[in-house]
């Protein structure tokens, strides 16, 4: 079980809701993924087209835990405002802190992320900061009281997979709160790698929504999350320089 704050989850795969080819495909992908936590963003309504389809319309929101993000925020204060707007919906008390420091790389601003996390914890939110793979920053976020820490595998939407497995394993090793690898996942192999390194969960969006067949990829990501976790729990063998025979050397009928 994955425990975040006072909530427990069977699924270790969190799914974003952006950029699906259609709301129907999104709905099917979400169902196949068996994700229990969905992320989304907070944006101004278009008051002149109020009936444009909304992603919530197709989903039974009572069946999911909603994890709004603070995307669009460049400062801690902006992140807190977005978080409060999301909470006013009465549908969620978790918040993904996302304070971007660079438009080109979409890498998180470490100082503002830390400040926003502190401010939102004081406001009583369940806080899950999206952060870089900096080992010390992850520790500092945990020390503040973050309920989970979400290091990026690589830049958002890049599909580059885990570019610093050493840092990720160090973050996992030192953590006492769930580590959720967020952003940059490209393929099921990346998910397996992250889970085998000991990550507690995966958050991805574009890897599924941008796949040729998002529903099939959602299925693959679900299985990869489970396979990686099982492999981590089972404990892989150590790597050796030379071969070790699997079959016994005694009793051979030749020679």
């Amino acid at each position: 079980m994955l425990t975040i704050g006072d909530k427990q989850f069977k699924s270790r795969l969190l799914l974003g809701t952006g950029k699906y080819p259609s709301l129907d495909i999104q709905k099917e992908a979400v169902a196949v993924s068996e994700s229990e936590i969905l992320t989304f963003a907070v944006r101004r309504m278009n008051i002149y087209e109020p009936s444009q389809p909304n992603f919530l319309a197709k989903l039974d929101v009572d069946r999911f835990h909603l994890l709004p993000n603070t995307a669009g925020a460049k400062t801690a204060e902006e992140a807190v405002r977005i978080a409060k707007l999301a909470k006013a919906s009465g549908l969620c008390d978790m918040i993904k802190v996302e304070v971007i420091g660079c438009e080109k790389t979409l890498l998180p601003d470490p100082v503002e992320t830390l400040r926003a996390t502190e401010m939102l914890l004081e406001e009583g939110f369940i806080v899950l900061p999206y952060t870089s793979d900096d080992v010390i920053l992850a520790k500092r976020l945990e020390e503040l009281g973050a309920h989970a820490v979400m290091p990026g595998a690589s830049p958002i939407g890049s599909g580059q997979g885990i570019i610093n497995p050493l840092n990720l394993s160090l973050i996992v090793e030192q953590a006492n709160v769930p580590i959720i690898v967020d952003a940059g996942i490209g393929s099921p192999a990346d998910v397996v790698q992250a889970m085998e390194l000991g990550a507690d969960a995966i958050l991805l969006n574009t890897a599924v929504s941008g796949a040729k067949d998002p529903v099939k990829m959602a299925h693959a990501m679900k299985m990869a999350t489970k396979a990686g976790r099982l492999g981590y729990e089972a404990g892989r063998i150590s790597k050796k320089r030379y071969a070790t025979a699997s079959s016994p050397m005694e009793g051979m009928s030749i020679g």
Partner: protein
Amino acid sequence: MQLRINGDVVNVPQTVTSISDLIQYFKIDNPVVIVEHNHTILEKDDHAKATITDGDTIELVQFVGGG
């Protein structure tokens, strides 16, 4: 009555007196409408009580797909 809604200057009839009226006036049927009225975020239950007057600043936000 002139309001600033989501950054735009918008004219609405005088019959629109509360936030609830405003949501109905624009025929907004989203499952989630979150309102910030003169920089104060409102709980859903307060939409009917919140009276609007000329010159008010209102933000109407929603949840959209995102990662």
